[in-house]
């Protein structure tokens, strides 16, 4: 059993900080931009690891259907669990393998989603602190249904499961918002010993709205050809938002990104790499190969609009005019920003993909068939037929986005190269 955040601290000290120094030292505008984005992430992770040994602090482990603002309103340190495996997948694969094996040794089947197996393995290995609590949502996802009761026992910390709506419409979002008010807030009051302060929540939502508006602007610039930043950097604001929304650090990071993107557009400094194809990548990309997108861009002249999880903003900022509108907006954002949307019906996934396909003027689609995700693999056949009927070139990539032992980066590159040779 390791110490809380022991592996996380290793990633910060042995990878993130040296990478930050390295990127800063390079005479390359893109690398400097990447360094600035990474700064906030390092700071956030350091705050988290420090909080693990401070009994006065509470670490909010949250997943599915939520964004960090409400946890900041209770002065907690939020950790978006969906993003946690990627931290290791991109940097220390042996930790991914170690945690997956720890989960399997405890009896979790090897075909359960690797995100869930990773998190259970991390919990069993003592990676999460005892001053944490866990909030997640029950939804149509086999992996979480199997893994989270085990997770609850392994963590031994207060846990709350919310019910996710099965449909993506206003009444569902309002129902979900009411649940956040009637179940999550009392839970947070109990675990933190603090009373909910509506004005504090409003301030935090307003802070996150500033970031969201900037993010919408940034994503608007991705409709231009060529785009102002390379594929590998495009998802950065969204990743910052889902991990840190409501914290001034997140707003600052997205503001900096926004300023740089706008400067490039204004000064006519586009991404210098020629763009032959623009692809919308539905569902998650393989995070174990951070060089995949640069390779696609440089070797194949393929520009990627990321839709990692559901990583392109499609909403308006949250309406803070009343408590009701604020919770409804917060509910919508939770349902949209995390992987929740991926678990609605196939028609909705298709509709969302086509919206982005048209908005960003793509000419092809890549769709991940993550081996542990029945929802997205189940939608594959319907989507494949739709794209064929519409004459949209589509590549369905079976892979595990965390575990490179299932399908190697080389195999994926081969499939991607073959696909783009046909269009």
């Amino acid at each position: 059993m390791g110490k809380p955040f022991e592996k996380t601290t290793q990633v910060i000290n042995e990878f993130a900080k040296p990478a930050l120094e390295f990127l800063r030292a390079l005479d390359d505008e893109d690398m400097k931009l990447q360094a600035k984005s990474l700064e906030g992430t390092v700071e956030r992770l350091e705050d988290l690891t420090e909080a693990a040994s401070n009994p006065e602090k509470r670490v909010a482990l949250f997943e599915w259907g939520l964004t960090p603002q409400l946890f900041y309103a209770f002065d907690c340190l939020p950790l978006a669990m969906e993003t946690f495996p990627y931290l290791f997948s991109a940097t220390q694969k042996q930790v991914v393998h170690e945690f997956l094996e720890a989960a399997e040794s405890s009896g979790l089947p090897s075909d359960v989603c690797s995100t869930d197996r990773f998190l259970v393995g991390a919990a069993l290995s003592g990676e999460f602190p005892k001053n944490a609590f866990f909030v997640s949502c029950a939804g149509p996802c086999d992996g979480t249904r199997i893994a989270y009761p085990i997770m609850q026992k392994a963590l031994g910390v207060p846990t709350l499961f919310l019910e996710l709506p099965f449909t993506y419409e206003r009444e569902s979002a309002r129902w979900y918002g009411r649940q956040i008010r009637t179940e999550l807030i009392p839970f947070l009051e109990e675990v933190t010993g603090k009373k909910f302060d509506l004005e504090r929540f409003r301030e935090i939502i307003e802070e996150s709205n500033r970031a969201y508006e900037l993010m919408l602007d940034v994503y608007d610039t991705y409709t231009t050809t060529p785009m102002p930043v390379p594929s590998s950097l495009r998802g950065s604001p969204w990743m910052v938002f889902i991990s840190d929304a409501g914290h001034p650090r997140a707003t600052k990071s997205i503001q900096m990104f926004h300023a740089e993107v706008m400067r490039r557009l204004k000064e006519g400094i586009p991404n210098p790499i020629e763009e032959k194809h623009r692809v919308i990548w539905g569902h998650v990309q393989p995070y174990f190969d951070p060089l995949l997108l640069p390779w696609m861009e440089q070797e194949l002249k393929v520009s990627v609009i990321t839709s990692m999880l559901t990583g392109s903003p499609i909403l308006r900022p949250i309406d803070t005019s009343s408590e009701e509108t604020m919770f409804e907006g917060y509910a919508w954002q939770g349902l949209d920003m995390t992987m929740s949307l991926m678990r609605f019906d196939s028609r909705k996934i298709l509709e969302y993909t086509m919206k982005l396909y048209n908005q960003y003027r793509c000419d092809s689609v890549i769709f991940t068939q993550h081996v542990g995700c029945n929802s997205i693999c189940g939608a594959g056949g319907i989507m494949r037929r739709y794209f064929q009927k519409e004459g949209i070139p589509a590549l369905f990539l079976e892979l595990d986005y965390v575990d490179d032992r299932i399908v190697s980066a080389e195999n994926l590159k081969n499939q991607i190269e073959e696909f783009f040779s046909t269009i």
Partner: protein
Amino acid sequence: MIYAGCDLGTISAKAVIIRNGNILAVETLPYKNLPKQAAIQVMEMAKNKAGLTKENISYCLSTGFGKKAVPFADKDLPEFLCLSRAIHKLDPEIRTVIDAGGSTIKAFNMDSSGKVTTSATNEKCAAGTGKFMEVMAQALEMPIEELSIAALESGHALPITSQCGVFAESEVITHVNEGKDRLDIFAGISLSVAGKVAAVTRRISLDQPIAIVGGLAKNPIVVRDIEKELGISFVECNLDPRAIAAYGAALLAEERHAS
């Protein structure tokens, strides 16, 4: 001018040499390891057959699983491009192609201009590929060429249920130890492979005429079982089906070098 294409697959290396689109030599060389050497050797064989020296080849393109390892190639190309180019040259009427190779299964539709319109490939698993069959034949301790013909007479194919190559191999060994007829076992293996190839192919349209290429196209029992499984009949391409991608690479070498 003379042009060449080299397809370095996982089981064999193939080389084709052409002049003005006409084939001067075709060679195929199965190999166990050392792919780079296999590529060099197969090209030497092809050059000898065509009566050429190295200097005679103006431009060479490589393709296949080991395309980056072909030391003499000027450039490499994806297999889809090479296959579609060759098929269009050999028979422009063909609308669907199944490439059943050593480690991949590909299926694609082509339009009248030879452009690939839809495609599908096997993904994380090599079940149903040539390598899978080769391992099973080794477990049966008989040459695959012999089994592929003799098993056509099997009247009772034994089902092989495992998709995983390792488990399937132990299933085969269990059948052997139980004294089951090896031809019946191989017929079962063929059905398993045909099912996998058909599953990939069903992701695209079965537009006629349909051709099968790749190493498994030389395996009569597998070809028969794929035809049965999909309810189709393959048309013949007028070239060794293993060398189609290499031929496409040679054609593209000629076209690209000329332009």
